[in-house]
């Protein structure tokens, strides 16, 4: 069992700055949890507290069945992979991999065996006698991962491990780490992983669940799909997804027959019945309406009347398979992504022209402007 539980975890620095505000998080045995957030959201601090490199100011951390609050890092059953690899520069790859075991007084034969095993798993065998400075970035990071595996920890901690690599290498290492996690899980080894990153592609592709943090608070913890489809609040909605979700401040008006619509510069968008119940239960007038670019289509004759809005096309970005089309509705800027063949068929030379857009309202979100909560879930 290597479940990790954070309860009311707090970090206050000596200058009085509260970096982490009593967060609660449960990471299941074998789960791959990604913590994501903008710079300065305390995601790394949280990880370092979990590792024992940073003291905690309040709350508790449980790994397995043990409260580890005041245990030194080496007794927590963790292994960590650092952003800049943190390989010992004066030791060969072999010594780097076996250093933890050597300190744990494991016999030489066993160290040899485990190092070779890990080296094989990560294709490091031909590099075993090299020094870290003779390795490329990708190789060095593999050694760093290998060093973690050799220790057979209960929990793996990753602190932005891929951010020093170039884009191509990052993509292949991403897959490698994911595969490794699955392999470990299959062979019944502890594989609980906490992975800190600011790259949402990494988060979306690697995580079983993602924890979004902001200013020392957890904004939402959920599977990548749910996070994308059902963001709890404005921050998560804006943070996950590229291009960003369209968000416009607007007014939610009640109409006579227990219905609601959004006022959009003289035009209106009606709410589907499924959303209506929830929105009415938390009704407020000032709202932010959010909708992802892929849920805005070109309107045709089948589009429901109260989901169609007229906009002026401003800029078209060709992304190859699709176009990002930026348009304005009065002074509100929005973006939609439309497959290239449709654009070539219907929209060529339409910059500056008016166009009807179909907003698929069942996929839209209404956020309370004050509390920033999603009131349409």
């Amino acid at each position: 069992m290597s479940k990790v539980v954070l309860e009311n975890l707090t970090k206050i620095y000596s200058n009085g700055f509260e970096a982490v505000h009593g967060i609660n998080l449960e990471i299941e045995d074998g789960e791959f949890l990604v913590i994501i957030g903008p710079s300065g959201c305390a995601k790394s601090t949280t990880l370092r507290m979990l590792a024992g490199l940073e003291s905690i100011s309040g709350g508790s951390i449980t790994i397995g069945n043990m409260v580890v609050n005041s245990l030194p890092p080496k007794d927590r059953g963790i292994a960590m992979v650092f952003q800049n690899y943190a390989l010992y520069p004066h030791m060969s790859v072999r010594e780097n991999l076996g250093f933890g075991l050597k300190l744990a007084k494991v016999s030489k034969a066993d160290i040899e065996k485990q190092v070779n095993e890990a080296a094989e798993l990560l294709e490091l065998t031909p590099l075993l006698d090299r020094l870290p400075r003779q390795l490329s970035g990708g190789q060095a990071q593999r050694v760093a991962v290998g060093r973690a595996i050799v220790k057979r920890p209960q929990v793996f901690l990753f602190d932005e491990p891929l951010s020093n690599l170039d884009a191509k290498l990052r993509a292949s290492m991403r897959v490698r780490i994911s595969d490794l996690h699955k392999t470990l899980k299959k062979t019944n080894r502890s594989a609980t992983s906490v992975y800190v990153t600011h790259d949402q592609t990494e988060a979306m592709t690697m995580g079983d669940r993602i924890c979004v943090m902001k200013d020392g608070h957890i904004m939402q913890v959920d599977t990548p799909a749910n996070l994308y489809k059902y963001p709890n609040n404005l921050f998560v909605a804006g943070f996950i997804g590229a291009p960003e979700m369209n968000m416009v401040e607007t007014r939610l008006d009640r109409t006579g027959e227990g219905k609601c619509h959004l006022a959009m510069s003289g035009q209106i968008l009606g709410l589907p019945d499924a959303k209506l119940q929830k929105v009415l239960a938390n009704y407020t007038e000032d709202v932010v309406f959010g909708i992802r670019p892929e849920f805005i289509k070109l309107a045709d004759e089948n589009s429901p009347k109260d989901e169609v809005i007229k906009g002026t096309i401003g800029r078209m970005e060709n992304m190859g398979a699709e176009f990002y089309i930026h348009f304005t509705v009065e002074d509100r800027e929005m973006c939609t992504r439309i497959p290239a063949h449709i654009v070539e068929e219907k929209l060529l030379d339409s910059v500056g022209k008016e166009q009807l857009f179909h907003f698929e309202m069942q996929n839209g979100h209404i956020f309370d402007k004050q509390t920033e909560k999603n009131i349409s879930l």
Partner: protein
Amino acid sequence: MNKTFVNRSVAESNSYVKAELRKEKIGAAVRYFILLLCGLVMLYPLFWMFSAAFKPNHEIFSSLSLWPSEFSLDGFINGWNTGTEYTFGRFFLNTLWYVLPKVILTVISSVIVAYGFARFDIPFKKFWFVTLVATILLPTSVLLIPQYLMFREMGMLDSYMPLYLPMAFATQGFFVFMLIQFLRGLPTDMEEAAQIDGCNSYQLLWYIVVPMLKPAIISVALFQFMWSVNDFLGPLIYISSVEKYPIALALKLSIDVTEGTQWNEILAMASIAIVPSIVVFLIAQNYFVEGITSGGVKG
């Protein structure tokens, strides 16, 4: 018309490039000449010492020439035998007996103290650090008398202990300061990784910090070695019996005891005396430069 214009401009630019190259060459020649001249002026005393060691005594002060008119090894032979019952080799060894412990103790104590300053939270750390820096500025002569009295009370006079014992307590703030600056420039990730791998503070120091500090440690050892070999005042105060004299005192000894000073012997022995420092410096030179530059720049 166009063609002639092009041709002319190519010819012009060619001659321009040639003129520039010539200027550069002349400039370089002037620079090297000045540098060589300065180098010679600075090295002349050293060359003079070496050459004078091979001259007979009467020729030393009578000619400026570096080449001896009569080549003689007497200076070396007599100088080595000294006017005492001991050979110069004895004084060499004496020097080693206190310089080696001094270097070793300095390195060990300074590294430990610097590690503490650079990596641990100590109460009033800033105050202690300022105090440390202040001791660098303190003239050593201020301490001579109280220290002498202290060692006299401890019964350590006429032994090497007063020369190296203080080094066991990181008393040379300069070295501690240098190491702290170097350590501050090193990322702590490796140490954190080692902590997770299971190192305690001492293992961290030994397995991770010391290997990374190697260039700075070599600089410290080298400085201490050279300064200690050259130290005259320390041995002069604490060492009274001739059998324990180090090189610095032994050279002075020959000036004292002989009425007509045998300068060729003194210069011959002085030439030999600087050999260890030069050899050690040449061996450690690469690390040394790395150590002082990164220690200074990164801090």
